């Protein structure tokens, strides 16, 4: 393991940023979100949760796909510029790091999303352990260890130092490049102490032991038809807050935009909570907010696991718990539907 004094981090950032697009939790107008670092950026590694998850680094809110030019009856295609830049994302928490694996399942299996795939391949993930988990965290329910965040490199901040441990080849490669900024750290006890502190806190968290056992693919119809969805969803505004702050939500829309000389086709985040999500010329398969609400949670808790070996499409980051305008969230769903035995 290696360590670096926190006050030397800016130099490390600027070194990494020379060869890579470096993404860090950056403070801007009251919020902390992952953003590309530059020398004026205000980095906030202490923020437990960025408002948005880290997914935009791989799956940006909008992604240009292809550009068309139309001339009379003819159409020509401009192939898109692929994201070839090397990227480093620094300060990812265990839950967000885990979300990348879930997104991989969605985006790389079957027809792989080449933009996502390429960004994933070009990116080195430096994670950071959560020193101070909060009441909405329930990563433990999904077997995520916030004290050992994994990724290509794991880091911990203890007593003014950032402790650094590469986990993968990509991590080692990055470590080799930046090793001059670090001092060797033979004593793991500081990190280990923090880890046990973190685990102790997490054990005490109210949602850590939430019961997911009810959510299995074979209960699909039973859960789907539960009468409780109505009351659960009735305050839902149909906004996209939960889906847009969620690290695992992956729905998107494909849209065209007429530019000055052509048509830009792009992909952008969409939300299954939006009223027009499934609306088409023939009608709407999910016309009520209850149905849309149910879809979102059924997807996370039943459909996705059914297609991916029982893995839930939720990492317990608790963003939806804290950000829903009307305080509806997945935990309330899990608890309410999980009650039925």
């Amino acid at each position, binding site marked *: 393991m290696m360590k670096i004094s926190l006050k030397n981090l800016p130099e490390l950032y600027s070194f990494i940023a020379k060869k890579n697009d470096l993404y860090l939790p950056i403070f801007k107008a009251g919020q902390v979100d992952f953003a590309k670092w530059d020398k004026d950026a205000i980095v906030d590694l202490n923020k437990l949760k960025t408002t948005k998850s880290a997914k935009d680094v791989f799956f940006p809110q909008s992604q240009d796909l292809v550009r068309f030019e*139309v001339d*009379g009856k003819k159409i020509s295609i401009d192939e898109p510029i692929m994201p070839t830049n090397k990227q480093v994302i620094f300060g990812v928490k265990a839950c967000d790091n885990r979300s990348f694996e879930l997104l991989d399942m969605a985006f790389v299996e079957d027809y792989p999303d080449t933009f996502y795939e390429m960004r994933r391949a070009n990116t080195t993930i430096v994670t950071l352990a959560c020193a101070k988990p909060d009441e909405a965290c329930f990563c433990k329910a999904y077997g995520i260890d916030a004290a050992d965040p994994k990724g290509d490199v794991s880091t911990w901040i203890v007593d003014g130092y950032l402790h650094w441990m590469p986990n993968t080849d990509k991590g080692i490669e990055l470590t080799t490049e930046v090793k001059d900024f670090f001092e060797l750290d033979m004593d793991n006890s500081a990190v280990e102490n923090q880890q046990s502190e973190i685990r102790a806190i997490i054990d005490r968290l109210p949602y850590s032991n939430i019961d997911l056992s009810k959510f299995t693919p074979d209960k699909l119809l039973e859960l789907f038809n539960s009468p409780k969805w109505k009351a659960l969803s009735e305050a839902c505004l149909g906004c996209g807050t939960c889906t847009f702050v969620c690290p695992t939500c992956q729905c998107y829309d494909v849209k065209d935009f*007429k530019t*000055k000389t052509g048509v830009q086709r792009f992909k952008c985040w969409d939300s299954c909570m939006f009223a027009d999500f499934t609306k088409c010329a023939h009608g*709407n398969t999910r*016309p*009520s907010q209850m149905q849309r609400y149910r879809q979102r949670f059924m997807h996370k808790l039943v459909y996705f696991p059914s297609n991916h070996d029982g893995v839930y499409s939720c990492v317990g980051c608790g963003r939806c718990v804290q950000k829903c305008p009307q305080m509806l969230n997945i935990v309330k769903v899990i608890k309410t539907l999980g009650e039925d035995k």
Partner: protein
Amino acid sequence: MKKIGVFVCWCGSNIAATVDVKAVVEACKKEPNVVFAEDYQYICSEIGQNKMADAIRDYKLDGVVICSCSPRMHEATFRKTAEKAGLNPYMIEVANIREQCSWIHKDIEEGTEKAIVLARTAIAKVLLNAPLQAGESKVTKRALVIGGGIAGIQSALDIADAGFEVDIVEKKPSIGGKMSQLDKTFPTLDCSACILTPKMVDVSAHEKINIFAYSEVEAVSGFVGNFTAKIRQKARYVDTAKCTGCRACMEKCPSKKSLNEFNAGLDTRPAIYIPFAQAVPNKATIDPNACIKLKTGKCGICSKVCTAGAIDYEQKDQIIEREYGAIVVATGYNIINLDKFNELGYSDCKDVITSLEFERLTNAAGPTKGHLICPSDGREPKKIVFVQCVGSRGLRPCDKQYCSKICCMYTAKHAMLLREKHPETEVYVFYIDVRTPGKNYDEFYRRAVEQYGVHYIKGQVGKVIEKDGHLEVQASDLLADEQLHIDADLVVLAAAIEADDTARKIGTMLTASMDTNDFFTEAHAKLKPVESPTAGIFLSGMCQGPKDIPDTVAQAGAAAVKVIGLLSKDTLKCNACVASPNENMCNGCSLCATVCPYGAITYVDKEFRIPGGVQVRRVSQVNEAICQGCGACTVACMSGAMDLKGFTNKEIMAEVESICK
């Protein structure tokens, strides 16, 4: 695929000189959906229109763009042709490449480039245009004529003779207007009263004409074919049904100090009065500002002398609401206030008078029984100076910039009549130019100079001052290049004319556009001279601009013909470009109705199918006969449910996009 045809007009050299029409045609051909593009010298010509009709048929066009003059000029022409050729008239768009392009840009390249953008924009719009069908509205077969001067009288008579009801609203107690105050009329020198009076009698006798004298229009609502006017009939304090016009009251009235408006204030009249002998209606009116009874409650003499018992001190203003299909504006004119022309001494010297006062002074029914005297001391004037263009054609703030048009002729008339009646008087006329276009006008003027020896001096009068009971006129003779001092007995000012002071109010009421001088604007300066741009409003006489009696009568007749044409229809095609709500998006919030100036929007509860049942929602509906298509509602509507046919959000945005490309 929608097929669009494009025509590019040369308009002779009007467009072709600064726009490369061939280049525009070529550029249009490249636009999507354009299957046909051609240029022609005059598309508005019959040949041009035939070409257009042929192209519509041959190419099965779904839309046509004409790059030509302003749509305000020929849009209607093109639409008619399209309709004849089987294309919905609203599938026509005009790209204004003359007024907005060739006429204002000198550079061919610049002009062509802009013309292409304008053409492209029109193509973008026509592609989104939808065929529109105009609705129909009923026509109220009655006309309103505002103003009872010769213009109003003539219009009313012509309309009534065609069999339609007419109401004349005149603010004064009698109709007749300015013409009734005139003595003789140029160039024939007939007596004004002799030719006007029979018309006034005709009006009063006409069964189709209703006179609201001493009345004013208070408010007008509605639209062409369906106007509703509120008329305030001011209290005369005389029951017109009973008054016989015997004038006994006038004789006995103790309050005789009011200035007589009819005689231009040169003498006085009683508080109860009939303005002049031939007044129509021949009914008395009490001037509430002068009547002792009304002011103090004491007197009541007129009531006592009136054998018909017509006097009613309790009478109140009455509001009458009437419906009309068309409105003729004949509000006439006034002469300007000369207070600001101190140098000419009008306010200070009694012997400086206006031409209108001169008319009254020479009129046999006037204050002097037609005996011309100096108002100051009653002597007969020996030397008279006429000053032209007082307040006309000037650049000072108190001046009107326009020519008052009638002064040259009436001054010639005055001078001639003077010299004829009083050959011993010397008559001088100071002028800037003498303008005498018109049949027999110049001959008339030349007679004044040549036959009657009137001294015409090109030059301006700088000053008129009173000196020893005479007037010293200081002027310059521009041709002789010398300063003149003329000792005159009487100075007559040809004061500029201006729109009547009520015109602005009436214009606003009618939403009829007016120019900066408060003259009503015609729909087209040449081709629609008697129509206001506001449908159903017609212009008669001086309200539209200075003109003499023959012109006024001609215009009055023309306006009447337009009214007759309108009223002879049972229904009118409504404006097809009306608001139309999409009820699937309508919130029923009523915001559109709050801004609708016509009250065209109403609401109904309607059932809508929603998942799992039926929901009742309040939605808006537009009465297409009432909607005039302003579009105020479309912006008040948040959801965009309310759109304006012919100017839809999508169409306008397509135009914006096309321009900004």
